[in-house]
């Protein structure tokens, strides 16, 4: 993140700081309402495409939003966040294929594995700053990717996990039923976003912003910067891993591409599209990115050119994401109406 962006970010955030306090109850209600709307969607439309789209939004959305906890809130530009996406997909897939445990057990166990791996990698990485941090995370990602490729007996190498992921029903939920998978994905997305929002709005979240803006100052007032960074690194990894698990369920397999740097690149791109200064920016970016990807690939095989131009347009032309514009527009409108009434 450039200083300019950081400055803009703090401006927008300051605005929200003065006007809103953390309101977990209201957030919980909104989350519940969103979930209900999403859950009712299949009744309104028979479009399987829409369901697929929302499932993919859940996978990528959790991944991108968790990346924003690092990039936007803490100023840690991770180029290797995709490794946790891949880890989630492989951890879950392998657990279901090899051990045959119940889905929730595999889910929790995968999170536990991610926790340990993220703790080790994070402990090494978060000491570093800026480009060094970015490159060491990238290096770890490539390490995990190479491990997946070469550990053929366990991971299937570059062919990926084959034979489908078995999903024995649990608590009346059958994930091989597409509708059930859809509802579960929506639930995971909404819960994930809710939790991440609570983290972002908590005192800890504000500590992160302070570290981003001035780490020296933060440590002078007694904050253990390393520990705070490590905590958010691990938390973000857990959400990315959840995204990976949803993706593994969607494609019924796990492939080395899930842990490749291109996934991390897509995460960064999504954040640029949506904007890193607002909590929902990456979620908007995800929807935008997937719509863009799906429509462009349907029309032309030269999608690389189109997506490249869009990236350039956002990076050089706009210099901020879509959500940033929405917020700015909203704030300006309110100010104008404020002027009029006073």
């Amino acid at each position, binding site marked *: 993140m450039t200083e300019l962006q950081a400055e803009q970010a703090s401006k927008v955030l300051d605005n929200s700081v003065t006007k809103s306090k953390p309101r977990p109850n209201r957030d919980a209600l909104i989350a519940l309402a969103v979930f209900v709307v999403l859950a009712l969607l299949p009744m309104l*439309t*028979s*479009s*399987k*495409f*829409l369901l*697929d*789209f929302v499932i*993919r939004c859940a996978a990528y959305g959790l991944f991108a939003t968790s990346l924003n906890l690092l990039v936007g809130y803490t100023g840690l530009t991770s180029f290797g966040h995709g490794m946790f996406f891949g880890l989630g997909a492989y951890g879950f897939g392998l657990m279901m294929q090899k051990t045959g445990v119940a889905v929730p057990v595999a889910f929790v166990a995968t999170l536990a594995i991610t926790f340990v791996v993220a703790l080790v990698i994070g402990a090494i990485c978060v000491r570093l700053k800026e480009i060094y941090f970015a490159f060491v995370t990238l290096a770890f990602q490539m390490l995990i990717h190479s491990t997946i*490729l070469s550990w*053929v007996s366990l991971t*299937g*190498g*570059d*062919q*990926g996990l*084959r*034979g*489908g992921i078995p999903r024995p029903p649990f608590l009346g939920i059958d994930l*091989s039923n*597409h509708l059930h998978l859809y509802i579960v994905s929506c639930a995971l997305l909404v819960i994930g976003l809710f939790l991440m929002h609570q983290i972002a709005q908590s005192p800890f979240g504000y500590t992160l912003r302070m570290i981003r803006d001035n780490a020296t100052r933060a440590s002078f007032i007694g904050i253990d910067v390393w520990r705070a960074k490590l905590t958010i690194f691990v938390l973000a990894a857990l959400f990315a891993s959840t995204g990976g698990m949803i*993706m593994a369920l*969607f*494609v*019924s*397999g796990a*492939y*080395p*591409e*899930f842990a490749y740097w*291109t996934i991390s690149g897509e995460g960064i791109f999504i954040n640029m599209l949506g904007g890193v200064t607002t909590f929902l920016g990456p979620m908007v970016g995800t929807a935008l990115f997937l*719509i863009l990807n*799906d*429509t462009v*690939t*349907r029309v032309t*095989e*030269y*999608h*690389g050119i189109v997506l490249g131009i869009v990236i350039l347009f956002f990076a050089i032309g706009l210099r901020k994401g*879509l959500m940033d*514009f*929405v917020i*700015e*527009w909203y704030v*300006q409108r309110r100010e104008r109406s404020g002027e009029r009434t006073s």
Partner: protein
Amino acid sequence: MTRTRKPGISRRSTLALMGAGAVTFATPWVARAQAKTIKVGMPTILSGRVAQLGTSSRNGVMLEVEKVNAAGGLAGRQIEMVIRDSKGQPQEAARVARELVNTDGCELLIDAEASSGAFAVHEVARDLGVLCIHTNSETSSLTADPKQHIPNAFRTARQGVHDSIVGGSYAAAIAKAKGLKKWATCSPDYAYGRDTTGEYVTYLKRFAPDVEIISESWPKLFQPDYTEVVTKILQAKPQALYSCLWGGDLTSYIDQANIYALFTQMEVFAVNMADYTALTVVKNLPKGIHSGNRYIKTYPATAENAAWGDAYKAKYGEYPTNWSWENATAIMLLAEASKKANSADGKKLAEALRGLKIKSPFGADGTVTMRAEDQTLIGYAIGWGTTIPQEPYVPEVKPGDWKTILELEAEWKKSKGYT
């Protein structure tokens, strides 16, 4: 008063965005309407390093689809191909395949994906129950492993293990005749390279037990510089070299090895050499490289095969690839199956495809068969020959014996625990 443009999103662009969103989600209903034509979805790789896989697969398919449509289509329904790029990413392959069936209303799938993408599409076929023909994945386990088996998936590509059996027996005959005992291998470092080389060596040693591998090299896939690999092989001084490098990797390797005159110092067996993608690109094609056939006009040496190759070249300006014939075969089989079943329904077609034997320019004896038990293609032309630097490049191909192939394949399946 001048009107200054405020930064931010205008109402108009908001509406435009919402409109775009609505169009995206409304397409499913639009797509339902037609019933007379039958849509066939085809996810493949049309961009990136192996884009040629997708383009030559598409060409092979379209060449045959035109013929089928001219002859009345599949049980009276004209075929409409919907071909989409997966960028070589398995999650995109899965998404595209689902979209083709769920949104675009495709009733059949031609899966022209490579390696992991094919397994991703296979899972989609398992989930949706749609008839799916794998046309490019040569990984044996896709059809040999009973865990992978689903009644609605077939394969019209050659199979890795068939190649290894034929390659191994051909090489063993030459090894015995010329006394080649010290061998080296040089293959790309990924599943295809490792598995194919491993199986090849197994069969080579089986037919010629005194062969010994003295050097192994595993260059990375898409590696640009092979100097290190070439010098390593030269230092080991083997009498023969096996390689399953392919496409651009193989041609760069040959160009670079030519500088060191590697091909004059040992017999070289490169299974993927006899494909026009490699033959026409190498600068100085050395004489006498042993290669398996991929697609070559001269083998099978029939008028039908030569005519098919020429028709393809006349239409697309280049010779067909291995992928072209594999994809064309899928359409030929579908056309015959629809005649037999008198229907274009996926389930009936699948039933008709099992055990179906059709006339084919690519058949070893003029026919190919979709074997019923594991739903994979057998009887296709498979053999080895040596190169010359100009057309027809591989003038004579020694055919593999399908009886031996099938016997050894059954044995191999048993050893893997598949049967």
